[in-house]
């Protein structure tokens, strides 16, 4: 058997660098550390042309497999699809651009003996203060909303046991929060400091829409982590607060009406009714959420057993979210 096989998953989704150079840069340290590995590169349809140098390397005998998606999907789905094709027990995710020095990969793999997921933290940072400001604002919000103390969710370089990817519900744009979701499933997550790559130090400012999407992701994450099983606690709190203020306004103007002030031509009456209406709507949505949770509870397993005595259980039928939309076509393979 020898050492366990490490599958390096590279989703090619945005700002890709020349993939053959990337492969050489990151496979070299792995080879030097004596780690058996394979690269699974998965491309969005519009990046197909970038794969040809890799295919040449694969034909030359390098352990590379290139997958081509039939349609554009989120990075979480790309990772799931790539994970299906990977043969290794340890998966290593790597963005298609340089984040950390290649030497970090061996350190991450080395953590797999006593952790389920190890994520690289770019430290010390060598990029501009604008990047670092964005990073610290984002992680400040993460800490405030979820209580997590993880420092670099954006890095994207992580090693994990296969079971982490299999057992963690992951979809859409939530790949960024994979370590958080894994922690919630009871996996041990560690951070490993890694030297930032000099290719990662240019200042990046995104379009406003990107920041809006990040904020919405974070809100979704906050809700999913805390209220998946009990939506009414969230909607009920919002709704009853709104209804309470509405009723207070209505009570005050009604009392003033008894005191002789006119009632019907006061705009504040409208505000009171509006708040009450919003409150009822929020509670109604919460009840719908509870109904969905209740009717799904018996097909959903709400816990994970610790790994030491995992036996297959008849109730192991979990809902794994939506499957991959299209089976990927294998463009080329090393074997």
């Amino acid at each position, binding site marked *: 058997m020898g050492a366990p096989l490490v599958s390096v998953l590279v989703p090619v989704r945005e700002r890709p660098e020349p993939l053959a150079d990337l492969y050489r840069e990151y496979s070299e340290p792995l080879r030097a550390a004596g780690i058996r590995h394979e690269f699974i590169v998965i491309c969005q349809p519009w990046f197909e042309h970038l794969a040809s140098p890799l295919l040449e390397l694969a034909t030359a005998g390098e352990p590379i497999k290139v997958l081509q998606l039939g349609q554009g999907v989120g990075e979480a789905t790309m990772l799931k699809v790539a994970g299906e094709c990977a043969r290794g027990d340890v998966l290593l995710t790597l963005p298609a651009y340089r984040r950390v020095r290649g030497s970090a990969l061996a350190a991450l793999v080395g953590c797999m003996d006593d952790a389920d997921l190890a994520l690289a933290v770019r430290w010390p940072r060598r990029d501009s203060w604008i990047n670092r400001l964005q990073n610290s604002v984002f992680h400040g919000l993460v800490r405030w909303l979820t209580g997590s103390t993880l420092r670099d969710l954006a890095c994207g370089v992580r090693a994990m046991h296969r079971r982490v990817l299999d057992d963690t519900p992951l979809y859409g744009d939530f790949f960024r929060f994979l370590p958080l979701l894994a922690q919630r499933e009871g996996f041990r997550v560690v951070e490993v400091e890694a030297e930032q790559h000099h290719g990662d130090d240019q200042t990046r400012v995104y379009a406003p829409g990107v920041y809006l999407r990040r904020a919405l992701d974070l809100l979704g994450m906050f809700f999913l982590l805390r209220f998946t099983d009990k939506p009414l606690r969230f909607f009920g709190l919002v709704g009853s607060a709104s209804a309470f203020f509405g009723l207070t306004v209505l009570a005050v103007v009604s009392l003033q009406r008894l005191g002789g002030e006119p009632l019907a031509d006061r705009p504040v009456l409208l505000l009171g009714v509006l708040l009450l209406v919003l409150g009822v709507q929020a509670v109604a949505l919460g009840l719908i959420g509870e109904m969905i949770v209740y009717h799904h*509870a018996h097909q959903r397993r709400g816990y994970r057993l610790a790994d030491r005595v995992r036996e297959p259980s008849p109730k192991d039928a979990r809902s794994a979210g939506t499957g991959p939309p299209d089976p990927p076509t294998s463009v080329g393979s090393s074997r």
Partner: protein
Amino acid sequence: MPNRGGVITRKPFLSVVVPLFDEEANVAPLVSRVRASLETVSVSGWELLLVDDGSRDGTLAACERAAAADARVRVIPLARNYGQTTALQAGFDEARGDVVVTMDGDLQNDPDDIPLLLQAIEEGHDLVVGYRVRRQDAFVMRKIPSWVANRIIRALTRVPVRDVGCALKAYRRGLLDRMHLYSEMHRFIPALAVAGGGRVTEIPVRHHPRVAGESKYGPGRIWRVLADLLTVKMIQSYSDRPLALFGPVALVSFGVGGASMVAAVAAAFEFRPWLASAVVLPGIAVLSFGLGAFLVMVGLIAEVFLRTEASDAPRPLPAARELGA
């Protein structure tokens, strides 16, 4: 069939499920007390399931020592701390018994009460709930909130169980197949059991003061209990017919809207000079109509959900007993 309603005709296999969170000092005494109590019980066999709910102390190691010493003791280690309800459900999923008894891991329940629970199950009940006589807990912090909560829960769910906080309960297997616990629903097990078509009764059980370890309850759960209570009420009465819940509220809303409309028209024709505004009353009418329409649509979406999603994987039907057979 022995375990689908009706009277159990052969001796049942018994599973005892105990969720444990940071109860290291209580594990060994618990196991020996349960073992001693079950020697006298008339069952075909028994197992004791210790569910370790992600304890931070040596609870898991203590459980594994107990399991190594006695093959009837099994350990179910959860990957992290999920809370009492989920720990119970994990125990139910692993339990093999025809009858499942649950109790607290802090030795405040008395395993000697298990035969009484079993007897009530054999009389044909699906769920037997203990109520603690002469409860040994702090008066202000534990007993008063518990008394209030019991009163409210009884009044709203109309399940005549006087002590929803008592962990000592016995379940028939068939009921567990129809009932699934999640979130923090352990307080509402009797209500969920009735919603699942179960026959529920209660019997008095003993209660002892805590000897070792610390209580894991704190105040400040009132809001959560209230929100959960509303959920349970909805599940009990409306989970199969959401329009019946949202429809009447929508009607009230339409009524308010209609009344505002009438008043606005009256004001416009100056039958009532004090109704002067051309904005406020029509505004209220629009908001109320909007709310009514919203609620009807929410109810319709819920019906769509029930007809599609929920019917893909139907719940097991409740058991029905043939009378006079």
